[in-house]
Every structure is written in structure tokens, then in C-alpha cells.
């Protein structure tokens, strides 16, 4: 029989995880964990953190947005601040399953699930967001670029909790997009998700900075860092765009599964990277790709 815990504070939750973390699973919205319980295996216990106080809400914090880990995806989607300041993150919350799921699922759950296809993850990587990870012996602020360790695995291990997400505002003049490829629109798990954030230089002639996040095409969401390095400091020409898109595809390491083949996923990475770079370049500089 499965054990059940409903801690009333973060410290109580941490001591429950200290003792039972190896067998028990943390549950928040439940939209992933309940499916596991029904179709895979019941964990030894459930630690329901849904009612922990102080972990919801979206607040401006100087140059960033602070998002409580239990904030629902629908709260992100309906936040004017998220839509205005972090359009790629907003787009991923908008493309996130159904209204029913968005009303329940939490951003912390989407992150801690550490699924390579987690909808919000590629945007969080390009935004260089960080997570506040708490453990019974202390806490640390972890960039999401080094948070994920494999499908379902993160630096939290079995005993840590993510309490807050901090998303810095992109540099002024930056443009970002999140592009998702799926058969059934938002309802489907992404075959590929690509987030692009592009910052032009002062004269809007060159790419000063660019960040490309790839979802569902590696054991974790990843940044296409070689492609980013190739693009920095240059104007986006047609030949550079083609080269960059192909390089992003070569930086992915997708698998074949029921949603698509690895080969198809690489093509889609190439297409979405090209599209994302084109769109952000045009929006940021007002120029066509020459």
C-alpha cells in the first residue's frame, strides 16, 4: 500500500524526502504522475506538495520575473507580464496541452519531470533562467542549462525540491520565438520544440547574441552552442542561415519513437531553427535575410 504525505511547509517536505525520497514521488498538479500511477507502477509513496504555502505567483524582481514552482501553466498563459516580457515562454505555455491540463499542471512539475520534450524547457534554456533548489542541508541557485541530467533526472535527485524559477529579461531589442512541431497542435507532445532568442548589435547589422534551445531531440533539452558560436557577430545571410540550421540538426541526437523517426526529427530541427532565426532576425532588425 502506497504511503501518502501532505507536508505543510518546505522544511517538513524536505524531511519527508530525506526519509522516503528514494521510494516516494513528489506530486504537484499530477498530470504526469497520475498517469504513471495508472499505467506504469505505483511509487512507494506520494509527497503531495500542492498546498505548500508561498510557491505560487509571478512577480517582477528588478530585471527578472520570479515564478513560484507551483504556478500553473494557465497562470503563465494568462499573465500579461509573461506575454510582454518573455514571449517564448508565453508561447510554450500557450502550446501546452489542453485548457484542462494547463489549469492543473505546474511549471515546477514541467521542469522537475525533466522530460526532454517538456514544453517550457527550451524557452527556459534560451532565457538562461535559474531554479532555486532546496535540500535539507541548504539551497542553491541552479541554471537550467546544467539542471537536467537525463530523461526524468535532474540535480534535485530524490531529495531536493524546486521552489522558484527566476527568468531574467532578455537584453533590450532582443526577439524570441518558440516553435513546436506536433501532429495534434498543442494537445500533442512535441516531436521537436525549438526556442530562439536573438539580440542584434546597436546598429542592427549583426547578431550580437543568439541562443538556440532544442527540445525532444536529446536525452535532455539542450542548447545548440556550436551553432550559436557560428552565428555570433555576423549578419544573417542566406548562406549562414542554411549552414546554421544544418549545424543545429547535427548538434541534436534524437531517438526514433512512436512520434517520429530520428531522421525526421533532425529535418524538423533544421527547419524550425531556420524559421526561428529568420523570424527573430526580421523582428529584431527589420531586415530580410540577405
Amino acid at each position: 500500500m502506497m504511503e501518502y504525505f501532505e507536508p505543510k511547509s518546505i522544511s517538513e517536505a524536505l524531511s519527508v524526502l530525506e526519509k522516503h525520497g528514494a521510494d516516494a514521488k513528489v506530486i504537484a498538479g499530477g498530470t504526469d504522475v497520475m498517469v504513471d500511477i495508472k499505467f506504469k507502477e505505483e511509487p512507494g509513496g506520494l509527497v503531495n506538495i500542492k498546498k505548500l504555502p508561498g510557491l505560487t505567483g509571478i512577480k517582477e524582481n528588478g530585471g527578472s520575473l520570479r515564478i513560484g514552482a507551483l504556478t500553473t501553466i494557465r497562470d503563465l498563459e494568462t499573465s500579461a507580464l509573461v506575454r510582454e516580457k518573455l514571449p517564448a515562454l508565453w508561447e510554450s505555455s500557450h502550446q501546452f496541452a489542453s485548457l484542462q491540463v494547463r489549469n492543473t499542471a505546474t511549471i515546477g512539475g514541467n521542469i522537475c519531470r525533466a522530460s526532454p520534450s517538456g514544453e517550457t524547457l527550451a524557452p527556459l534554456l534560451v532565457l538562461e533562467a535559474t531554479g532555486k533548489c532546496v535540500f535539507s542541508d541548504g539551497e542553491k541557485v541552479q541554471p537550467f542549462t546544467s539542471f537536467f541530467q537525463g530523461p526524468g533526472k535532474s540535480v534535485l535527485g530524490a531529495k531536493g525540491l524546486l521552489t522558484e524559477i527566476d527568468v531574467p529579461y532578455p537584453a533590450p531589442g532582443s526577439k524570441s520565438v518558440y516553435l513546436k512541431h506536433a501532429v495534434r497542435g498543442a494537445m500533442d507532445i512535441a516531436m521537436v520544440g525549438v526556442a530562439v532568442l536573438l539580440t542584434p548589435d546597436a546598429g542592427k547589422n549583426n547578431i550580437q547574441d543568439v541562443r538556440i534551445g532544442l527540445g525532444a531531440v536529446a536525452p535532455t533539452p539542450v542548447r545548440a552552442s556550436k551553432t550559436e558560436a557560428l552565428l555570433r557577430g555576423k549578419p544573417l545571410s542566406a548562406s549562414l542561415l542554411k549552414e546554421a540550421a544544418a549545424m543545429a540538426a547535427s548538434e541534436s541526437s534524437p531517438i526514433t519513437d512512436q512520434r517520429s523517426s530520428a531522421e525526421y526529427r533532425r529535418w524538423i530541427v533544421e527547419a524550425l531553427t531556420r524559421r526561428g532565426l529568420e523570424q527573430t532576425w526580421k523582428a529584431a532588425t527589420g531586415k530580410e535575410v540577405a
Partner: protein
Amino acid sequence: MSVTINTKINGQSVSASADASTSLLEFLRDTLELKGSKLCCNTGECGACTVIYNGKPINSCVTMAADANGAEITTIEGLADGDKLHPVQQAFIDTGAVQCGYCTPGYIMSVKALLDRTTKPTAEDIEEAVSGNICRCTGYAKIVDAIQLAAQKLQLR
């Protein structure tokens, strides 16, 4: 492990216990014998189990029964006023938006939640509100007709 659940369902206080692994849908159907919410995909993809939880439509199949504690929940059984159907229910009948009927309670709850938010939904609002509900019989056109008819009826109230 058994969890005690104190909740309000369709306006009535309910106290019952359920195993921690129980979904809200199983709690409604098997413990409370409210069979209107339907078990279909059991993964949060089809919307047949939609109920209104603290004013918001959710999939009861992927929600823990324990999360009903302290919440207010409306199910399809809570819509009619005695023998008088809710305008959304009546609109589905009047437009012929029902065939096999299995998806219908979920649709009606999604639409009820939509029309609680606004009685003048745009085409986009309608699409968003029911994009998490699947119907394999009707082809959706009559369902959209039903939603528009229900919205008109509610505006006249």
C-alpha cells in the same frame, strides 16, 4: 494509505475516504456513485472526465482525489435544476450535438466553464475551451452550434 476527503460537490458537503492513488474521477464514480463524468483515456487527453474545480475545468482522471480536499467541484450531475436542464445541456439536445454521448458530459462541463467566464465567446475562445475534448462521432460543427446557441440563451437571461 487512506486519505480522508472533505469536499463540496455540486453544492453539497461530502466526507469520504479514498486510497492515496485514487484519482478524482475514480472517487466521483466509484466512491460517490456519480457516474456522469466518464472514464475514457485516463491520461488527460480526451476530456471525457472534465469537471469544474474551483471554477476551472480540469481533467478529473489526472487529478488526485486528495486534492478535492477543501475544493468546490461541479460535475455534470450538478447542472440541471430539478427536471429543468441547464441551458448548455438543452443546447446540445436542440442542435443535435450528441451522437454516442460518451464525450458529452465532458464537453458540457468545458462549455459551462467557458460561459461562466464569458457569455460572448469569440470563435477563438470556443476553440480553446473545447480543444481538450475529443468527439469521435459528430465532426464538431454541431458542437460549435450548441455552444453558440447556449451562449445566446445565457445572454438573454
